[in-house]
């Protein structure tokens, strides 16, 4: 903590004061945690029956196979589709023809501004119910449209982040538009985009949980069945949440590694806010 814009390097007296703050702060936090644990104790949340399903092999298998695996599958499928969708519309947004550019812009902005749950519910009731393709694919397609639109923005920004000279040089040696894009710009852009694409996988993985509302399979749905049977809501939430957190931390770790390996310490890609004509961040 020696170099911060917010304060000078502390001297001995300030250090002593900081130690005091640390003790007070630590005590307050420990008190809060203690209060919570005491609450859990008095309401009998540590009873073995409530934790039993998570120690029973059959339930662990259900949790991991029907839950985690299905969730990962949904996230994986939707990201694959979303990359294709994003590539098409991202490149479309960079087109020289306004009759290509505008529809692409409209589609991307629409799906980025509409809440994912609204989209999933609509897809489910319009195409998924009854003879349709079911809840599983409703979630996958909803995720594809949303993440695809976000990725379209990522692709656009990534391609534009390639230095101008590259494209110009490619034109100068006589390449066509398609060649410039596929041989020169995209391969260089992908390097810059990779971390952003992997972070989007985390978003997709988290958003698969929205399938809960239309009873699509996945971790959250399995969790609902377990606490429906055993009445152990808190324990189930804790277990399900830790499974999500663990998978996401692995993904985040991969993203950081890729960033270091392929991009170096350069600033991560900036993606514009919904509705902004081309500047900003994401969430």
């Amino acid at each position, binding site marked *: 903590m020696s170099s911060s814009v917010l304060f000078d390097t502390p001297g001995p007296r300030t250090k002593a004061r900081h130690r005091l703050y640390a003790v007070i702060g630590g005590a307050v936090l420990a008190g809060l945690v203690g209060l919570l644990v005491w*609450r859990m104790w008095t309401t009998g949340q540590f009873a073995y029956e409530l934790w039993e399903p998570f120690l029973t092999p059959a339930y662990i298998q259900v949790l991991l196979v029907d839950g985690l695996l299905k969730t990962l599958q949904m996230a994986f499928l939707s990201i694959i589709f979303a990359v294709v969708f994003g590539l098409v519309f991202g490149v479309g947004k960079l087109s020289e023809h306004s009759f290509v550019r505008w529809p692409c812009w409209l589609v991307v902005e629409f799906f980025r501004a*509409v809440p994912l749950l609204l989209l999933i519910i609509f897809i489910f009731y319009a195409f998924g119910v009854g003879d349709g393709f079911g809840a599983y694919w409703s979630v996958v397609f909803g995720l594809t449209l949303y993440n695809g639109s976000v990725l379209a923005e990522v692709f656009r920004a990534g391609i534009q982040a390639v230095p101008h000279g590259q494209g110009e040089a490619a034109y100068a040696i006589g390449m066509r538009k398609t060649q410039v894009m596929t041989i020169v710009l995209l391969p260089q852009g992908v390097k810059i985009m990779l971390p952003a694409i992997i972070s989007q996988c985390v978003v997709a993985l988290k958003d698969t949980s929205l399938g809960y509302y239309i009873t699509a399979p996945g971790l959250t749905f399995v969790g609902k069945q377990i606490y429906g049977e055993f009445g152990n809501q808190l324990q189930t939430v804790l277990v399900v949440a830790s499974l*999500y957190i663990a998978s996401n*931390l692995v993904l985040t770790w991969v993203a950081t590694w890729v960033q270091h390996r392929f991009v170096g310490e350069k600033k991560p890609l900036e993606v514009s806010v919904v509705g*902004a004509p081309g500047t900003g961040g994401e969430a």
Partner: protein
Amino acid sequence: MDDIANDPGLVLNAFWVTIQLAVLSGLASLVLGTLLAAMRVGPVGVLAKFGTVYVSVVRNTPLLVIFVLVFIAAPTLDLLVKTPFLVKGVVALTIYTSAFVCEAIRSGINSVSLGQAEAARAIGLTFGATMSQVVLPQAFRATVPPLASVLIALAKNTSVAAAFGLAEATARMRGITNNNADDRWLIFMTFAIGYIIIVEVMSAGAITLERRWRVSR
């Protein structure tokens, strides 16, 4: 579509709940997020650790799981039992969004380079002047775009409350869709446009602020 045509209030009331959720949890998570950011960038190790853990846990948990925690698991601890649904929704959204607010603010502070503070001290500005004249104005400006996208995401995330019995816009759309199978597209577009208006208004506001505070370099 007849339902909406006969009673436009149905849609407007639902969006009113959405807006209430968004504004209340937006304000609450700005407060909590700023507090967390202060803890994370502050000199006290324990608090900084706590902030880091909170952010990485919450950011990697789906919002829906946090809603399950607040709406379904908390009552088994005798917490939040008689609380109105709107308040519970605000609590869940605040727990989630404050982690993102914290990160937005922290990235704003990190964007000010150390040389700025050092130069300010070198020309003899006091600590207060360094903060108020040099560091915080720059940090504040850099915070606007990421904070705006966090709040826009929050406005969209209020839709998750639909799964927990809050009659906001997404829940209302589901209800109306159930009764009017023929007009699904129109109903969907009506609600989608409602959300788009909210998002566009927030986005336009953020862009205006950004332009106003931008410094020509």
